[in-house]
């Protein structure tokens, strides 16, 4: 689009020049970290180490240290897995689908959202790996020859599809993210004074020269990757949902699962992006790039996807009632009124009711409200997976097997550990990488920068006046 209506809010504030953008975004990499950064990093790293320790304990002792039992054979591990994969979705949506929809506001947030995707998928991928207990045979997941000749993967199993989906997703996301980083690494390289750092960024930037031909190739590759990523946004969580929906377990077997899981994933992903960016823009002084306007757009996506999830919840309830299948009836009755009703109502209020506050423009544009609601949504989405998984398994078809699931300190500790790993990685990223896409942001400066918008408007007025004189 060449023309932007003057009534659209500017996306870059502070009357920036190209040089100023480079300065502002490179500053955190070139300067020294403040005390707050070290403090948060220490806390995150301790959590990460605690988690790693408990994973080692699990390997050493066995899966028995988790709260699982014969009836509930899947609980925190898979809940955390789905939650983390879901969080990753926002990054892919922003980098691919918002690109196709020509949403210029994505330029300020895509880099950090994509980084978040990669770190979230790393956290997610740990759970399938550690839940096997015997991590040394984890390669049995893959269709590769092994010492037990007859042992082969089951291609009919959605768990195997999931393995392919997640690994494809991770590779493409990493590729997309890294290729976007190349010209920005070159910018950082050209500004470095210390020879070692210059060397490192020089390697990272693959010797980017910035001539026309490289830019042309860069844009072609970006478009191809965007095309590949778009179906991935849908496919990954679709297949995650099929881990449940292909079964005949009441509460799991329902056809709406694929699109509803995707909507839920985008919902939680955007909430996590909002949480991270509200802190990041403040700590790194990027308020003029990640504006209230950006947060408002994300909040709109949160209210839309939250409502889609709400419609899906209600659809499941109504159809369980409509169908007259007594098992489905009971599964939903048990969710809403059984021993885990507290979890169900946390899910309902956090995911469906609280995002409706974003219908108010005032709340959408309030930093404090956005920050708090983004955390509420993430809590709600964790409970959604917990509710789906545990309430459906703890009441077996055989009432004699009915039981409850109680997490142990190991379950909780490993989850806290993944949070620690996630934040450790994100904090390191914010110190070493340009957290906003420099080249892409520059490309919209003359269309959406506040200084340029003003100039254009003045020009329009002048033209209008001179026409009036004639």
């Amino acid at each position, binding site marked *: 689009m060449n*023309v932007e*209506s003057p009534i659209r809010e500017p996306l870059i504030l502070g009357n920036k020049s190209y040089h100023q953008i480079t300065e502002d975004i490179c500053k955190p990499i070139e300067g020294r970290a403040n005390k707050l950064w070290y403090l948060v990093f220490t806390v995150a790293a301790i959590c990460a180490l605690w988690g790693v320790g408990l994973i080692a304990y699990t390997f050493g002792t066995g899966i028995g240290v988790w709260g699982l039992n014969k009836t509930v054979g899947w609980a925190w591990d898979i809940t955390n897995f789905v939650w983390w994969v879901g969080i990753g979705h926002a990054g892919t949506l922003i980098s691919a689908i918002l690109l196709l929809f020509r949403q210029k506001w994505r330029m300020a947030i895509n880099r950090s959202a994509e980084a978040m995707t990669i770190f979230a998928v790393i956290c997610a991928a740990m759970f399938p790996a550690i839940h096997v207990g015997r991590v040394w045979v984890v390669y049995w997941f893959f269709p590769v020859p092994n010492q037990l000749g007859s042992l082969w993967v089951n291609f009919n199993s959605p768990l195997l599809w999931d393995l392919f989906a997640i690994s494809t997703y991770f590779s493409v996301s990493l590729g997309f993210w890294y290729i976007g980083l190349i010209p920005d690494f070159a910018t950082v390289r050209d500004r470095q004074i210390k020879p070692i750092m210059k060397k490192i960024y020089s390697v990272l930037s693959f010797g980017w020269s910035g001539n026309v031909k490289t830019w042309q190739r860069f844009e072609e590759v970006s478009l191809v990757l965007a095309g590949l990523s778009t179906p991935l946004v849908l496919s990954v969580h679709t297949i995650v949902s*099929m881990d449940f929906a292909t079964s005949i377990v009441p509460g799991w*077997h329902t056809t709406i699962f694929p699109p509803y899981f995707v909507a839920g994933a985008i919902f939680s992903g955007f909430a996590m992006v909002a949480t991270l960016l509200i802190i990041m823009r403040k700590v790194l002084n990027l308020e003029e790039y990640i504006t209230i306007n950006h947060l408002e757009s994300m909040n709109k996506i949160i209210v839309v996807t939250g409502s889609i999830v709400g419609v*899906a919840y209600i*659809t499941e309830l109504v159809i369980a009632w*409509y169908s007259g299948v007594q098992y489905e009836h009971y599964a939903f009755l048990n969710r809403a009124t059984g021993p885990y009703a507290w979890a169900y109502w946390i899910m309902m209020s956090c995911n469906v009711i609280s995002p409706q506050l974003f219908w108010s423009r005032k709340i959408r544009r309030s930093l404090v409200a956005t920050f708090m609601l983004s955390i509420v949504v993430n809590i709600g989405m964790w409970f959604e997976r917990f509710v789906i998984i545990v309430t459906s398994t703890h009441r077996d078809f055989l009432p004699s097997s009915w039981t409850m699931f109680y997490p142990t300190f190991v379950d909780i500790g490993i989850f806290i550990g993944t949070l620690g790993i996630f934040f450790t990685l994100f904090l390191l990223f914010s110190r070493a990488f340009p957290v906003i896409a420099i080249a892409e942001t520059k490309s919209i400066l003359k269309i959406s920068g506040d200084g340029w918008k003003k100039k254009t408007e003045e020009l329009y007025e002048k033209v209008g006046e001179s026409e009036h004189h004639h």
Partner: protein
Amino acid sequence: MNYTFAGKTKMLTIALMGIGLASIVYGFVMTPDRVWANLLLNGFFFLAIALAATFFIAVNYVGEAGWHSGLKRIPEAMSTYLPFGGIVILALVVTGMLGVHDIWHWMDHHFQETDSVYLNSGKKVYLTNTFFLVRTIVYLAGWIFLAIQFRKISLKEDSLKGMSMHKKGIVFGAAFLVFFAVTSSMSAWDWLMSIDVHWYSTLFGWYIFAGLFVSGLVMMLLILLHLKNQGLMQWVNENHIHDLAKLMFAFSIFWTYLWFSQYMLIWYSNIPEEINYFLERFNTDYRLIVISMLIINFLFPLLILMHRNAKRSPMLLSIVGAILLVGHYLDLFQVIMPGAVKDKWNIGFTEVGMVLGFLGLFLFVTLSALSKRKLLAENHPFLNESRQHHI
């Protein structure tokens, strides 16, 4: 320049309506059951196209889109068909209640008193004749009311500069999206899913919505190409056409995704209550319809519309669009017919004549509405973005 609806085009739509009328008379004499089922099929198909147009207006208001403002008079005109499509559905519900036809065979009192699934499920509350009629009236009244508001707002904007009308549009757009989020699924359960009264699928409403949106986009594009062919709407260029074609392409894939998700999960679990629905479609002569509509609605746009040039070629898009409409008609055909007429289906003069007749009616209403207003929404605040649209 305004559009004038006269001459050959007008004659053609009237001739189509004539064929439709003849086929209905013919059908009532030969196979009345098929006429009733086809009234539902065509009634819903064209209502869905008008609904998709209304959805398009609403979503673009709420999304603050600019590119579409040059062509928004087309969906606005399409939305005027809503009352006509609505009357057809309403008449079918009333005649069904009176026992004239049994498309919704649960409407029968005997069924309601004896069917064990019906009596042991929420259906005995949800699928009752009066409640069904009330719901139908609520859906239609809500959609028509909101569609009229969009038309009003847009007309007022022509004589009123500033943002006031646009802001009103955003409010009504949000209202429509909320109402439609609930009613699009519910109306699909009511009018279509309840034909196979023992069957249920939570995804059904969204799957019908996806097909509805593709059909609406195609119709919008075809009308646009017709206008451009007459030398009108010069401010709409190949970039706008490209965008519409991209949406058509994307939502065709999305439709396939939902069809497949529903099918695959039911096939995989193989539960008798659910799988019966697909056995009736795959293990009978309906197989031909199901497979052809899958090829038309998925493989065909996937392979042909993938390339950029294809999405910018009016000639190719007219052909692809027309075939896609047939594909989505066939999709609804295999949704409705197995439950409504069982194995007594055919594609003969009744079917072809009626779809042509409804097409004639739809075009007559839409093009008349189009000719009554300026083709350009001159004071749309984002019009300049649309005029200089370039991708």
